[in-house]
Structures are given as structure tokens and as C-alpha cells.
């Protein structure tokens, strides 16, 4: 195998991504600091999280510069976790319901269970 020069990119791009990650982390911390609640909170947290994860994988881990075969082999399989997520959520709702029905007598079940 030829000893290729590997992944060589100008240092500026790493510094820019580093700065962006700082801004995004500060933004997600601000969501907590300013007590944003409800769906807006979850939407902001997940958005900032996915942006940060995307930047790390794409630039720091050089995924945008790799061949598609490697990219698909690594990025697609974790999507299967969505199935487990859905099963877990369904099951958890059911468990919560039965716990409320059979053990909740006399005590009020909080709506803030999440």
C-alpha cells in the first residue's frame, strides 16, 4: 500500500470548527441557564447536539473527506438504534401506565414524570 500523505487540511478549518463547537456548547448551556422549558427546550437541545456531533464526525474525524463506502458503513448502522428507541419508548409508556394503575392508589402521579 502506498504511504499516502493522509488527511492534510489547513489548520484554519480546525480552529474554525473548534470555535463553532464552543459557540454551540455555550448555546446549549444557555438553554439551561435561562430556563427554557417545554418543546422549545428539547428542540434546541437536540438541534445543538446534532450540529456538534455532525461537526466532530465530519471535520475532526475527517469523514467528509473519506470515500462513500466507509462513510455509509459507519454512519448508517447506528440509525438502527431508532428502532430500539421506539420500542423502549412504547414499553416505558406502558410500564408507566401500569405502575400508575396498580401502585398509584392514594398518591397522585406527577405529570412531570419525564
Amino acid at each position, binding site marked *: *500500500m502506498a*504511504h*499516502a*500523505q*493522509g*488527511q*492534510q*487540511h489547513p*489548520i484554519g478549518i*480546525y*480552529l474554525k*470548527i*473548534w470555535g463553532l*463547537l*464552543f459557540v454551540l*456548547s455555550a448555546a*446549549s*448551556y444557555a*438553554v*439551561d*441557564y435561562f430556563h427554557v422549558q417545554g418543546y422549545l*427546550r*428539547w428542540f434546541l*437541545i*437536540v438541534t*445543538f*447536539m446534532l450540529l*456538534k*456531533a455532525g461537526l*466532530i464526525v465530519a*471535520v*475532526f*474525524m*475527517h469523514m467528509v473527506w*473519506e*470515500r462513500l*463506502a*466507509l462513510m455509509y*458503513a*459507519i454512519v448508517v*448502522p*447506528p440509525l438502527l*438504534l431508532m428502532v*430500539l*428507541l421506539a420500542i*423502549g*419508548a412504547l414499553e*416505558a*409508556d406502558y*410500564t*408507566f401506565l401500569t*405502575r*400508575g394503575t396498580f*401502585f*398509584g392508589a392514594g398518591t397522585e*402521579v*406527577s405529570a*412531570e*414524570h*419525564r
Partner: protein
Amino acid sequence: MTQTTQASTTQALPLADGLQGIVADWSSDQVAFKKVPWGKAMMWIFLLSDTFIFGCFLISYMTVRMSTTDIWPNPSEVFALTLWGHKIPMILIAIMTFVLISSSGTMAMAVKFGYEKNKKMTFILLLITAALGATFVGMQAFEWSKLIFEEGVRPWGNPMGAAQFGSTFFMITGFHGTHVSIGVIFLIIVAVKVIRGDLDNERPGFLTGRKGNYEIVETMGLYWHFVDLVWVFIFAFFYLW
């Protein structure tokens, strides 16, 4: 045979059968991931499996948090610190996040200088990365002891609410902290190899005997960035949710 278009080396050897055939087939030069060193492809595969481990942890955390009828302790308050007379929510976790992101930045630059064969800069940046990683683990140790000794959080219960808070917290952050600690050791080993000139002189490694080269810095980097990546998800789902 239809393999006439293949390289001549594959025709020279007859294919082995049985157990030997299994070994021969899996170890031969069948390259799917082109233009990446084998070590890097294998690190990616390892990280893929690690993704499933952390994915399962976070999904089980979601399941127990959704199904408990007790009130979930508010992480914003549990992880608050009093600094200079002010109670600041989650400040330690925020600092830990910035420390880990900074270590990812220095790691990315170490990889760049490695491919430029700049021994000194690579060494320095790897050591800074290791120091930031060790700082992170130190802050986590502080966080754990505060939670255990002052707040009374245990894997089986805590005074603030749902018992599942402690069990999932210790399991998820503990597993992540272990990854960071192993990464710090890994970083120091690579840094020593760099400054000793092992990678320039292609000195064989002690474990595999393969010739050293600067690709191992990038492979090391993948592991380190992954640790940062996992923290992004833990920060969002455990601390901010």
C-alpha cells in the same frame, strides 16, 4: 475463471479449504475501504460497536426515566455549584464540556502536524490533549464525590427523587470516564512514540510488530474525538434534558 482481471498475485495461490480457508479468506488482501490504512478502518469499526454500547445505555436511561412514577431529580439543581457566593446551575458540567472540546481541537491539530512529520508540535499537542483529558477525569472525580458524599446519591437511591437517577448516572458517566482514562493512557503512549522517533524510523511496535508511521496518530485521534462525541450526547440527554 472469471478472475483474469484480478491482480496476478491472487491467481498464484490456490484457495485453502476448511479452517485454514477461513483464516486465509479473512486475512488476505481484500480491500473494501480504499485510501484508508487498515488500522483506521478497524478503529472506525470498533467505534461503531462502541456507538451501539452507548446507544443502548442512553436508550435504557430513557426507558427507566419515562417509566418511573417518582419525580426525576432536576439535573440543573443537582449539578449546581456555589462559586463566589452565587449558585450557578450546571457550571461544572459546562466547564467539563469546554475542556473536552478543547482537547478535541488540540487532537485534530496534532494529527495535522503528525502528517507534516513535525515531531515537536505533535508531541506537545498530544501532551496538551492528554492533560485536558486528565483534567476532565479529575473534574468528574470531584463531581462523583460531591454527589456521593454530600448529596447522598447511590446507585439504588437518592434523597431527591427517582432511584433510577443514580444507577443510570453512575453507569453512563462511569463508562464514559473509563473511556477518557484509557484515552489518556493511549495518548501518552503515542506521544512517547512520536518524540522518541519511532514513527520516523518505522520502529516496530511492541504488540503487533508493525512498522510505526504517523497514521497511528490519526487512528488515536479518531478514538479521542469519539469520546468527545459521546459526551455531546450525554450532555444533551442526561444533563440538559
